[in-house]
């Protein structure tokens, strides 16, 4: 089985390096095909591993030592167990689809080969992340996906906004990564190892305070990657990247890494009282918060991105409440339908020549039938309508909250579910229904390549049927994760809840359709709604990006500049130059006492004599009074004072004599 593990892991890397070979050369279709093929290989290997794991086994290999010093020992170790194999499946499926899709999507792009290189590298990093058997290995993948995300967001590097977003994403993630590193440090110094098995086996021996801190730091790391508040702004901006990237990285896989971490580290989080509640609360808040921003946005991709953010909130709720398997399940289901949604959006963008404003579209269902169907179904899945995947995973989270008596969280999530349905279908309605507003802009939309649609098909299927796997999935993962059936006690309540939720969601969908399916004009920002404070607040993302820019970025920039110009140059450096300057200036000012005049030279000698004589007389008088020889105790401190004093005296004598000389000279006149 190890060979499959290595194939699954390294096939994407081979694909990436292969494409990189052609990185600088013009498009060669073969790179796309090879990279996709290799990913398929990876997918097949993962499937084989899955079947193996289903048999109740796990695979654990140690490839080689990475770092070993002192007591630290970190290998490149990989583990395929019940949790990681699920992630592997998700990653390989979605990425295979996205790769194939990208062959079409990036068809006309100059950076075709480069794109595949980056994309495959991302998959490799993601595989490292999920398969690693220790925290630092996870960190490798963690940073690797960050790097690839940076590369891919900034893929169109000539666009200022793209590169800005790339840097923002990278730096924001770095902030979280620091916390994660600190968490890793704490684990190492407290447990002496970073291997999952060792850590989880011994974590209970630590004091609760320490575990709490470890949990907090690791969670901050997770917050960065999964774009939780307050580190969420990068995700929406990351939509500057090519759409397949958004589908793969910023919807299906990378952003869920945070959830994966929490799920993976569940033995740690189980030990921390109240931490779970905090995570769940934050998750619920983010779910609502993100959904609210999606309500009014006029950027197709951003709406989906906020939706992703919102769903991540759901996952954290589940994870926080200890239902780790539920979180992972939603992660999986969400990966399928959200990737599908993004790829559909990609088709639309293609058709609309990269137009992102759904208000400028409308009626596209006529020309883009396939895309229309897929996006609609994906939205249905997202909204959680029975029997689509979303229903099984998302409603489960609601149940979890309810069963655990966190009614506030439950209500928030319920409300968010309505909002989700609303904004999803607002988008669908605006894009595919109503008048063909795009004609105003002279665009002639066309459906995407057929093979792209075919490539999307697996996701569509999974988005529809993923819920069916719930039983076997539960069997699989609960052998590793804490099990827990979340059933409402009374059947009646269960049905009321389920049907009630479905009805509410359907109502939201209907409302969205009613309001937007016959939209006819492109809003210009003058309507009363758009003028209202609430709208502006939401449209500007609660002014948080503005706040970050004004408070953090600008301050940092100003402070940096000030440190350089004011501190480094004017104080630190000037002090050094100042000391040198004083020495040199002293020389310049005093060397004129050597004025070449013999009389003055003789006078200097006599002055020296007189000064010495004065010292001598003074000392003699002193000695007479003391009636004994004066003994100076030779101690370092005394010498120090003396030495400094001497230098000062020397300098001041020089200065005084210089002044005396100049006064005399001027006094003399001519």
């Amino acid at each position, binding site marked *: 089985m190890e060979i499959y593990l290595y194939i699954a892991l390294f096939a994407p890397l081979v694909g990436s390096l292969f494409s990189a070979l052609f*990185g*600088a050369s013009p498009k060669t279709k073969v790179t796309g095909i090879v990279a996709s093929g290799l990913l398929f290989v990876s997918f097949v290997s993962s499937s084989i591993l899955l079947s193996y794991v289903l048999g109740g086994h796990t695979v654990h290999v140690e490839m*080689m*030592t*990475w*770092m*070993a*010093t*002192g*007591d*630290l020992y970190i290998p490149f170790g990989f583990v395929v167990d019940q949790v990681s194999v699920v992630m592997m499946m998700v990653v390989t499926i979605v990425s295979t689809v996205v790769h194939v899709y990208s062959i079409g999507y990036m068809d006309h792009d100059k950076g075709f080969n480069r794109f595949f290189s980056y994309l495959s590298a991302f998959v490799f990093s993601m595989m490292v992340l999920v398969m690693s058997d220790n925290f*630092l290995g996870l*960190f*490798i993948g963690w*940073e*690797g996906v960050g*790097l690839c995300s*940076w590369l891919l967001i*900034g893929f169109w*590097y*000539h666009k*200022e906004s793209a*590169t*800005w977003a*790339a*840097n923002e994403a*990278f*730096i924001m993630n*770095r*902030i979280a*990564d*620091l916390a994660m*590193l*600190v968490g*890793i*440090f*704490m684990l*190492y*110094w407290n447990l002496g190892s970073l291997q999952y098995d060792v850590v989880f086996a011994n974590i209970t021996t630590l004091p609760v305070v320490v575990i709490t801190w470890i949990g907090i730091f690791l969670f901050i790391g997770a917050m960065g990657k999964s774009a939780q508040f307050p580190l969420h702004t990068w995700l929406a901006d990351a939509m500057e990247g090519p759409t397949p990237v958004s589908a793969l990285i910023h919807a299906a896989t990378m952003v869920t890494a945070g959830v994966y971490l929490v799920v993976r580290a569940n033995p740690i989080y189980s030990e921390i009282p109240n931490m779970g509640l905090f995570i769940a609360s934050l998750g619920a808040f983010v779910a609502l918060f993100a959904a609210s921003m999606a309500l009014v946005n006029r950027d197709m991709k951003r709406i989906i991105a906020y939706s992703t953010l919102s769903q991540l909130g759901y996952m954290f709720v589940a994870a926080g409440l200890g239902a780790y398997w539920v979180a992972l399940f939603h992660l999986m289901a969400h990966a399928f339908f959200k990737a599908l949604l993004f790829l559909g959006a990609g088709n639309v963008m293609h058709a609309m020549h990269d137009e992102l404003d759904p208000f400028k579209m409308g009626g596209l269902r006529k020309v883009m039938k396939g895309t229309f169907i897929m996006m609609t179904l994906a939205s249905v899945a997202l909204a959680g309508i029975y029997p689509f995947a979303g229903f099984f995973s998302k409603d489960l989270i609601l149940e979890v909250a309810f069963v655990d008596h966190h009614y506030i969280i439950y209500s928030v999530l319920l409300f968010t579910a309505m909002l989700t349905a609303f904004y999803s279908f607002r988008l669908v309605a605006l894009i595919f229904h109503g008048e063909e507003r795009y004609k105003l802009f002279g665009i002639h939309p066309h459906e995407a390549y057929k093979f792209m649609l075919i490539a999307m098909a697996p996701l569509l299927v999974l988005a529809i049927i993923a819920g069916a796997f719930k039983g076997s999935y539960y069997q699989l993962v609960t052998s590793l994760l804490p099990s827990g059936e979340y059933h409402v006690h009374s059947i009646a309540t269960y049905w009321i809840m389920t049907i009630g939720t479905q009805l509410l969601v359907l109502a939201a969908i209907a409302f969205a359709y009613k309001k937007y399916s016959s939209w006819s004009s492109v809003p210009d920002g003058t309507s009363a709604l758009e003028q209202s404070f609430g709208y502006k607040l939401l449209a500007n993302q609660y002014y948080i990006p503005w706040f970050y820019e004004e408070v953090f970025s600008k301050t*940092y*920039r100003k*402070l*940096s*500049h000030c*440190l*350089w*110009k004011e*501190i*480094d140059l004017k104080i*630190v*450096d000037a*002090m*050094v130059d100042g000391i*040198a300057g004083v020495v040199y200036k002293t020389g310049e000012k005093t060397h004129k006492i050597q004025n070449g005049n013999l009389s003055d030279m003789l006078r200097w000698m006599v002055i020296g004599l007189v000064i010495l004589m004065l010292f001598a007389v003074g000392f003699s008088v002193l000695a007479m009074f003391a009636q004994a020889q004066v003994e100076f105790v030779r101690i370092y401190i005394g010498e120090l004072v003396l030495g400094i004093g001497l230098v000062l005296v020397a300098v001041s004598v020089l200065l005084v004599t210089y002044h005396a000389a100049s006064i005399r000279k001027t006094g003399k006149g001519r």
Partner: protein
Amino acid sequence: MQEHILSILIFFPALAAMLGFVVHKDSAKAYGVTVAAIEFFLSLWLWKIYDPAGSGMQFQELAPLISQFGINYFVGVDGISLFIIILATFFTMVGIASLTETRRLKDLIITLLFLEMTMVGVFAALDAIIFYVFWELSLVPMLYIIGAWGGPLRIYASIKFFLYTFTGSLLMLVGMLFMAFLHYKHGGVWSFSILDWQAMNLPVNYQMWLFGAFFFGFAIKVPMFPFHTWLPYAHGQAPTIGSVILAAILLKMGTYAFVRFSLPMFPDASVLFMFPIAVLAIIMIVYTAMVAYAQEDIKQVVAYSSVSHMGVIILGIFALNVEGITGSIFLMIAHGVVSGALFLLVGVIYDRRHTKLMSEFGGLASVMPRYATIFGIMMMASVGMPLTINFVGEFLSLLGFYKQSHAFTLVAGTAIIVGAIYMLAAYKKMFFGTVTKEENKHLKDINRTELMGLIPLVILAIWLGVYPKPILEPIDKSVKELVVLMHEKARTVEAQKRIPDLTKSAQEVH
């Protein structure tokens, strides 16, 4: 030959430099590359015959020089110095191979070969005076390189570089003499042998004073805040090769000296000064990273980034445990590779455009894709991407210091954030966006000569990031000995607590 390998390594380049005067100036570069390559392979051979299981200093050579005063020609290597020596020979080779300078090339190559002698000498020396001799002597070729081939402010920069470091090292010399005198008072003979000094057990107050004296010499060399201001000038004005050698090797002398002198000789003082120095290191890390962010000149960005990374190295050294010290020594090598490569890269663009102002560029990624790629890889290495060489060092250094102070490490850890900020910003300014300047539209991508220097560095940066073991292992061995020695010598309770007792923990495991 094996037992004289170090002397050969030290004096071969110098001898070759003397003979180099005879070589015709058109063949000077080929000669230089040949000599440097031979030297490099000799150093690889040194690695090969180095016994990783052996303890203490290997290949020791001792010849009396001024026996009246306890000065001997005494050299040797251990895991700590071995790889820095190899790094030095490697960079000299790469540096000469990728030279694009045309003005008085022969002089430059001869100077570089002399410089190589001093660099190898510093790291191989086991006698403080021999160490000092090479330490000071290394200033001279560097002075010449900056002053003769540098930019418009080269003279100011070179004098500043020279005088600043010279002043610091003179204070260090006083410290060394006092140390030798203490040995005389204690043992009846003057001795400048580092091994003898390491065996001396000094009272704490002596340790503090001596630590201070040495500190000035080392700190200016590193350079630590607030003694760092010579560095931006030196880098800013130096020709590419000068910056490469300066950043890759010469700065390491300071940090190496901390490991070689300060830690084993003054363990108590090291513990006492740990936090003040950590504060300085943190200022170095954060402050210079911010200053780097404000720079307009790409070379200054890299220069300040050097200071910032050196801060991490210092922090790792003063972690005073195996993880930290090993990490910081590895980081010395890593930083050598990465910053050397970055300076080479800056040199590439400078050769083409004769400017280093970032505002002059933009969109280079489309004009020079290979250049952008290599720059990108090195930049990522510089910001500490895992699986690149820097990460291993930074991780271990910070990990080590975490044992000493949680809060400090948290603040110092912002290195990975602020480092990313200035590096990414610089990269964005240089490579992203559209080409706006007419001159940039037809820039030639990186050529064969330049690749010859850069490709090995890229390989090294990734190879050692993925598989650092062959280097980490010998370093680890020597560092363990160092830590054991420090713990044994520690007098104060604080120091005994701070410096881990390896012998005890080994027993616990069994």
